[in-house]
């Protein structure tokens, strides 16, 4: 996709000083391109370090290819950059270790995250990968809110948690798939136990 056709994120230009007005170009794994302001980038520790390390000038940004973000798709990246643009210039929260961690979801974030769980899952992965602390906080809080007032049985269903029995079965299956002889050894062990012989240990 050309730069002209790229889904440019709305920017509040009045909020950015003229001399610092610089946009970076990023490309998702499905080749969608985004222009993101320098100030918005600061919300992401990963991207901020990346652009710093690359030492791009305004000319470089226009002439060099967009910075590829290989493991995030365009739909998710659009949400990420929309969030970053909206919260640009805001301080990155510091964790004080409280339990539960106090996180409030602002109205804008709530609307932005009014998405299906598949996309929310990808958004959390992206926030974690790009190290966007507050986006990770609010998206995780949204997932945490799904647990409100539920019993363990309901939580197992909501969060797709396997039971202990299912975990055991999966573990056994994985072991067997890794080593086909494991079953034979297991059977031999059981046979010896039945015969009252000594165990392997």
């Amino acid at each position, binding site marked *: 996709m050309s730069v002209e056709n790229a889904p440019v994120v709305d920017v509040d230009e009045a909020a950015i000083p003229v001399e610092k007005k610089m946009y970076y170009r990023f490309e998702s794994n499905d080749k969608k391109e985004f222009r993101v302001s320098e100030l918005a980038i600061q919300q992401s520790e990963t991207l901020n370090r990346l652009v710093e390390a690359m030492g791009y000038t305004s000319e470089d940004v226009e002439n060099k290819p967009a910075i590829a973000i290989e493991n995030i798709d365009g739909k998710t990246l659009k949400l990420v950059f929309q969030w970053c643009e909206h919260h640009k210039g805001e301080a990155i929260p510091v964790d004080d270790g409280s*339990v539960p961690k106090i996180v409030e979801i602002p109205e804008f974030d709530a609307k932005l995250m009014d998405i299906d769980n598949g996309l929310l*899952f990808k958004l959390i992965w992206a926030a974690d990968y790009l190290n966007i602390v507050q986006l990770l906080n609010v998206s995780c809080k949204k997932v945490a809110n*799904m647990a409100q007032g539920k019993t363990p049985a309901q939580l197992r269903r909501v969060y797709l948690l396997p039971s202990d029995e299912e975990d055991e079965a999966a573990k056994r299956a994985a072991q067997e798939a890794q080593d086909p002889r494991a079953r034979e050894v297991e059977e031999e062990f059981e046979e010896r136990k039945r015969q009252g012989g000594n165990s392997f240990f």
Partner: protein
Amino acid sequence: MENVVFLFPLLLLPVNALKNVLRTMEMMDVLMFSFCSKVSKNHVKSLKWKADFCSLHLLDPIELKISFRFPRGYNIIQIELTYFSFLLRCPKPTEVRINTSHGATFSAVQKDSEEKHFYNRKRTGGELIRHFLDISNISEINRSQVGFHHDHYDENIYYYAREIYKGLKVKKLLCENVNIPDYYRIVNLILPKVFLHGISPSLEISRKLLIQNFEYFRMEHETSVTSLDTLLMANCRNVRFSCRQFTDKDFNRFLKLWIKKANTQLETILFSNSKDRVMEDILKGIPSRRMDERREKIAPMWKSVVVRDGYVINRSDGIEATISIETEHNDAIVFAVWNQF
């Protein structure tokens, strides 16, 4: 209409994000999550909650209380286990009540609380208690209290105590209103570091308790039965007990035997209920000198023991001890050994 259930593959999130989800959950929801499976329990455990106090009371109902102190205030988890089938020796409590509360200060904690109530058919009382201790990363219960006083519990209380306290470490045990045949067996089962005794057991039980290696032992009920022979058998390091039956002559005998190296493990004894003692009679025939300085000792369970205006005596190996009457402790006689001198 059935509520719409939104499914979310939580365990497929990156570890950091999963931890973040659990940290932003309300405490009650995290507790419920910990009961989903062994894996979910381990995730909660990895949050490294660090409790600052934990108490377990073998009362009716059995009550476990865990408190946490965080920069923004206090959180308390309270669990109550009720056994409807107490007489049937069923180790699974029928009802489990869980309450979580928080507040900016400890006294404000109860103002904001959430409670859940379940009927239980799956887990024993011990399993439930160990689950909560485990996720709170508690290795030792700070305070435990045994206080059953209903006649019909007497027969089975040891059975329940054995199941509940199995593998648990208890720092301080307080026994009150207990009058059951298995009382001594329960104390022996729990084996706390500190034992506070609020009732008056028989002389035989007093002896059995005093020979335990408690860091601190208190038995000062007005009617507690003690004797010099019982005291001489003590293996506890710090003792506080009523000495109503002690005469000045008994004290004198005790000091003379201590000088000859009886009770070498003793560090401090506070004899309460010891008004109208005559120090000259207590020290009769014992080489002693008047203390010329004030000494302070930090003993477990006491803020500190300040010894002043007492008398210094020496054991045959040179170790010093002081005996004094302390007005701050209601005219108690304080015997303190100063190993560090």
